[in-house]
Every structure is written in structure tokens, then in C-alpha cells.
């Protein structure tokens, strides 16, 4: 690793990117902190003033926060679990010598390629109790009729299925990239030692997948935790009666439908801190920064 650069050339290369990010990311972030400490709301939209940590207290003592936090954690854990296990499993298969792998791989990444809002709106249509494809299919094969979008956990499951559908290809491609870079010689050596399939997976594949999968999983957790689109569009803004929310969709509703701006800003900060603490602990503990090949 390389050389000490003149300030000018570093600036030349990085400044434009930082100016834009500063304007659209850092400035709003700081502004948000001020709003979170203020009484801004529809009644005090222009004449707002700083009022202290009251908003944070009302977020943390409000039972909706804890309730949606629970839902968000469940949402994140289930999604990431299915994304990673389906993704890695399919990648293991595609990495084998099966005929038509390019064909399968191409079709399997389609859910990633389709714009997210189209996925969400389409699945919402498919979960329609009477005309939706999901119930038609369940009715024809199992004689079942599930009122997906009109019950709390039905809507949650609908969002979950939608998000699993669109998320597994990313993990599959990341895992496939990692698998393809593992040299066959490791496995050949293991075979000479008499290792079985499980031992090979556990002792070779998994450790060499880890450095690639850990950053991908971390990003996956962050994206899923903050995945506004799917929850909002599938449940049409939290239906039935504001129960189908994760933290981000609830805070959006609080801000732009109920105009509780100070509360929403404090709420956003709490979400951010939760993610921040999690991510850094996760990255540290799993030693994502270390290179296995040494």
C-alpha cells in the first residue's frame, strides 16, 4: 500500500463525491438532530424552538416503539436468515458441475433485477384474497383461503415472502463469487486425507465464505432493517389499521401523515443508533476485517 499523497490530488479525486454526500447526507443528519430536540410539528412548523430531550423520552416510553422494534427485529432476522440460507444453498448448487447453470443463474437473479417498487406492488396484487394468484394457487392445490392483507400477521407474512423473494439473489451472487475463487486443490487435499462432504463444507467452504459473507450480511441486515419500500407498499401504508409496520415505515407515517416532526426525528435517531451499535459490534466480533488467506 502505496504512497503518501499530496493534499491536492486527494482532494481532486474525492472532493466532488464528498460535496454531494455532505449536502444530501451530512447536513440533513445534523439538521435532524436539531429537529429531534425541538417541538416541531404541524402547529409549530416555522416557529419551532429547541425544547430538550422530551421527544426521546416519549419515543422510549411509548409502547408502539417497543412493539415495532420487536416486529422489526423479527422481520430482519427472518429475512436475513432466509436470504443467506437460500442464497448460499443455491450458490453451492450452481458452483457444481450441473448442466444449464448459466440458464438457472440468469433466471434466479431476475427478482433482483426487477425494480423494488414493482415487486412490492405486484406481490400486493398477488396477495389479494379473492383474485390474487397466491390464494388461487393455494385454493387449487390445498383448498386453502388465507386473508393475507386484512390480518396483522397475514400482512406481515405477505411482506416477508415478498422481501425474501427479492433478496435471496444478492446473497446467492455474493456467495457464488466467493465459491468460485476457492481453489479445487483444497478439496483434493482434503479428499486425500479422507474428509467427508460435511467436513469439507465445515472446514474449507465455510471459513473461506465467511470473509465475503460477513460484510454482505452486515449490509443485508442494515438494508432489511431499513427496508421501507416493501413494508409500505405491500401493506399500503401499514394496513390493517397501522399494525403492519417496521420502525422506518412507522416513523415515516408519524412524520408525513401525522406531522409529529420532532418525535419522528428523535425516532429516526434512535433507529440509527441501534443500527450503528449493532453493525460495529458485529463487524468487530466476526473479524470481518481480517483476510483469511493471510
Amino acid at each position: 500500500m502505496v504512497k503518501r499523497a499530496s493534499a491536492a490530488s486527494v482532494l481532486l479525486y474525492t472532493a466532488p463525491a464528498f460535496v454531494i454526500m455532505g449536502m444530501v447526507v451530512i447536513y440533513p443528519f445534523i439538521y435532524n438532530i436539531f429537529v429531534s430536540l425541538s417541538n416541531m410539528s404541524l402547529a409549530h412548523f416555522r416557529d419551532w424552538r429547541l425544547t430538550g430531550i422530551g421527544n426521546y423520552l416519549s419515543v422510549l416510553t411509548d409502547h408502539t416503539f417497543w412493539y415495532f422494534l420487536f416486529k422489526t427485529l423479527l422481520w430482519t432476522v427472518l429475512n436475513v436468515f432466509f436470504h443467506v440460507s437460500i442464497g448460499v444453498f443455491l450458490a453451492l448448487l450452481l458452483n457444481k458441475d450441473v448442466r444449464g447453470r448459466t440458464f438457472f443463474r440468469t433466471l434466479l437473479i431476475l427478482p433482483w433485477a426487477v425494480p423494488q417498487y414493482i415487486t412490492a406492488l405486484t406481490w400486493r396484487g398477488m396477495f389479494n384474497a379473492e383474485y390474487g394468484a397466491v390464494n388461487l394457487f393455494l385454493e387449487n392445490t390445498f383448498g386453502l383461503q388465507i386473508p393475507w392483507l386484512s390480518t396483522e400477521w397475514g400482512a406481515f407474512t405477505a411482506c416477508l415472502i415478498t422481501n425474501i423473494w427479492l433478496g435471496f439473489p444478492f446473497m446467492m451472487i455474493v456467495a457464488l463469487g466467493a465459491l468460485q475463487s476457492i481453489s479445487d486443490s483444497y478439496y483434493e487435499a482434503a479428499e486425500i486425507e479422507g474428509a467427508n462432504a460435511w467436513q469439507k463444507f465445515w472446514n474449507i467452504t465455510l471459513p473461506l465464505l465467511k470473509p465475503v459473507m460477513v460484510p454482505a450480511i452486515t449490509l443485508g441486515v442494515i438494508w432489511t432493517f431499513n427496508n421501507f419500500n416493501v413494508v409500505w407498499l405491500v401493506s399500503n401504508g401499514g394496513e390493517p389499521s397501522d399494525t403492519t409496520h417496521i420502525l422506518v415505515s412507522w416513523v415515516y407515517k408519524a412524520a408525513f401523515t401525522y406531522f409529529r416532526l420532532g418525535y419522528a426525528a428523535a425516532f429516526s435517531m434512535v433507529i440509527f443508533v441501534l443500527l450503528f451499535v449493532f453493525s460495529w459490534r458485529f463487524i468487530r466480533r466476526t473479524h470481518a476485517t481480517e483476510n483469511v488467506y493471510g
Partner: protein
Amino acid sequence: MKRKPRDLSFKGKIGAYFVLIIFTLFAIFPILRVVSISLRPGNRLLSRSLAVIPDEATLDAYIRLITEEPFLRWLSNSIIVSMAVTLIGTGLAMTAGYAFSRYRFRGKETSLLAIITTQMFPVTMLLLPLFLMLIRLGLYDSYLGLIIAYSATALPFTVWQMKGYYDTIPFSLEEAAMIDGANQIYAFYRIIVPLALPAIAITALFSFMTAWSEYLVAAVLLQDQDLYTLPIGLKQFTSNMEVAWGLYAAGAILVSLPVVILFVLLSRWLISGLTLGSVKG
């Protein structure tokens, strides 16, 4: 004959195909469903059939979408915004990623960490201040406001992604060129950029998709119906499913087709180009 590590036994092969076929069906089913709805004649939108090609299939919905709805207007708005974001997002990430990969400078680690941290902001946290700021700058309800907002949301990921890819290119290549008298900028454009093409293609694709598929920010930042991008336009149809379901489906197909084609064409590069580089500086 001895099996190679990537070969499967006969039973394993059957199992592998079975699993691959099941998941492939799961992956394409919703897409086929939208195709099917887009081909239905107007009086059969609420049909309970699961056939892929409906009875009396027609391109009616597509024709109505293009001739009777402002679809082409939304399309050109989306193209303008997405192209601009692709150019800005890719161009800036190419250079910024290069600096992060090749130079050592004060605040580098911190900047890199700050970049990932931006991924943790809930989008709503940025939306309200952004909205107020763009009003103050006179950029509310304009292409430019949207372009800036999207470029900024795309950049953290793209910078990180380009840096990770440059890290895999040995520095000795540029060194050799510079010994021959080339300066750093020349070495960057003539040696590094061509080698980094797979990552650049992926970065461009992601920047494009960020803008092409974004609904939430556009819904808050645009009011003028003439500026509507495709996501806001298409969302309108879904509020009246009985009438407009076919129009929505036709629009969804037309909107997804270009990105899906790009994605498939670039998928060869997706595997090598998507490097989630380590956090190490």
C-alpha cells in the same frame, strides 16, 4: 473414474435439479403473472385464471398506456434523471474510490467508515431536512433536486464498491507506467480504468437502478405532474386496481424490461465486479 470436486453423484444431480427448478419457478412466477395480466382484455382483469397466456390475449393495455396515459412523459423524465445519476454516481465513485485505494492520507479510515455509516440512516431521517433544504435552494420540484438526492444515496455504495475493486489491482502496474514517464492521471485512465471495467459496469448499473426504481424520495420531492417519474406514475394506477390493473401490469413490464436486460447482460460481470472489500484501509 475419480470424481472431481465440482462433480455430483447421480442422486446429487437429481436433487440439485429439483431444488434449482423449484426456486426458479418461485423466482419467475410473479413475473409471468404480471405478463399474463398485462395481456388480458379489459373486461377480464378480475379473471380467476392462473394461465400464463390468457384467453383472448391482447396488447390493448400497452397501446392504451402509451396513447392515452402520460407514460412517455414519465419515461423521458425517468431517463433524464437516471442517466444523469449514472454519470455522476459512476464518475465520482471511479475517482473517489481510486483515491481511497491508492493514497494514504489523514482521515482516510474515518471517511471510509463514515461512508458505510450513511447506509444506516433511515431514509426518513434525511427526507424532511432534504425537503426543506431543496425548497430553500429553489430546487424543490425539479430534475436537479432529484438528481442530487439520488446521486448522494447511490454514492456510498458505489465508492466503497470501486475502492474494493481497485484494491485487487496491483499497484505495480501504475508504477511501471510512471517509471516510463506517465503521470498518475494518465496511468489512472489508461491502465486502471480499463482493468476496472467490470466494476465500473456494475457501479453504473447500480447507480442507474437507484434512480430508475426510486419511489419514496420522488413522491416527496415532486409535485408537478409533468415531472413525475415512472414509479410515481405507475403507483397511481394501483389505487384503482379494478380499472387500471392492466395498465399497471403493462407499465411494470415496460419499466422492468430494460433493467432486466441490462442486468442479465452484465450478470457475467456481477460475480467478479461485486467486491465487498474489507474494511481494512
